């Protein structure tokens, strides 16, 4: 048990900050990210005794976090639908009113365009564009084939270009 606690504390020490940015890139809001991190690390702690190392620790931790963030996005979508609210308009408001946004106008528009992407495309885009993960790594984390991930990333960049009215110049990877 003591060994597990040590391992858990090591995961917190090694990954909490990086994981914060991973989740923040998916959900945008700081407070929501903070809440999700508590849930994610609670899950990591509960699942740790069953971790056998079939996948690397990074992949395992990122998989838990990504699934949690995906669940959050889905709940948010359902809640908005039940309240007859536009999720896109809400996302724009969150970004406009975010006290911790420190980018320029172009980055604000990019953040809004990303926020409007479908959940899976958004996750793939964020992991590839901001975290610079390889398709193989993303594939291990999400359980999606590399081909499907490339297609998702392509569609995401197309939608972002449309949202930003760009014909080219937006780098695809």
């Amino acid at each position, binding site marked *: 048990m003591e060994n*597990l*606690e040590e391992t*858990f*504390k090591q995961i*917190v*020490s090694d990954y*909490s*900050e990086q994981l*914060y*940015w991973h989740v*923040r*890139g998916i959900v*945008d809001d*700081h407070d929501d990210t*903070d809440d999700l*991190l*508590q849930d994610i*690390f*609670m899950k990591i*702690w509960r699942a740790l005794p069953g971790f056998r190392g079939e996948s690397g620790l990074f992949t395992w931790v990122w998989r838990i976090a990504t699934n949690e963030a995906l669940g959050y996005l889905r709940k948010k979508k359902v809640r908005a639908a039940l309240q007859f609210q536009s999720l896109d308009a809400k996302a724009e408001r969150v970004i406009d009113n*975010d006290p*911790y*946004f*420190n*980018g*320029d106008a172009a*980055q*604000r528009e990019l*953040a809004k365009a990303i926020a409007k992407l479908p959940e899976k495309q958004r996750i793939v885009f964020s992991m590839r*564009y*901001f*975290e*610079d993960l390889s398709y193989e790594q993303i594939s291990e984390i999400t359980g999606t084939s590399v081909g499907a991930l490339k297609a998702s990333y392509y569609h995401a960049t197309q939608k972002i270009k449309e949202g930003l009215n760009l014909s080219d110049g937006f780098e695809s990877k």
Partner: protein
Amino acid sequence: MKRHLPYSTPEGYFQGLQQRLADIPGKKQATTFQKFSPYLALAAVFAVAVVVGNVIINKTSAPAASAMEVVEYLLDSDLTLSQLEDAIFYSD
């Protein structure tokens, strides 16, 4: 090249975060009863509402007349036998 998200965090956030997360193993895990107690409470409220509702309905509604009472009432009414027969045979 890695691109950075255009976001910041409150001052000293990550130190506080690490401390809070590192405290997770010390937190008492909720028992099964604690996990399901909100649902049990909801079920209990629902059961009470059903029982109270039944009691109110039984107290306020008039008792149903028996078949014999209905027949007696009809026979005592001013209806003729043929009208009664029409009512019985053509009511379906």
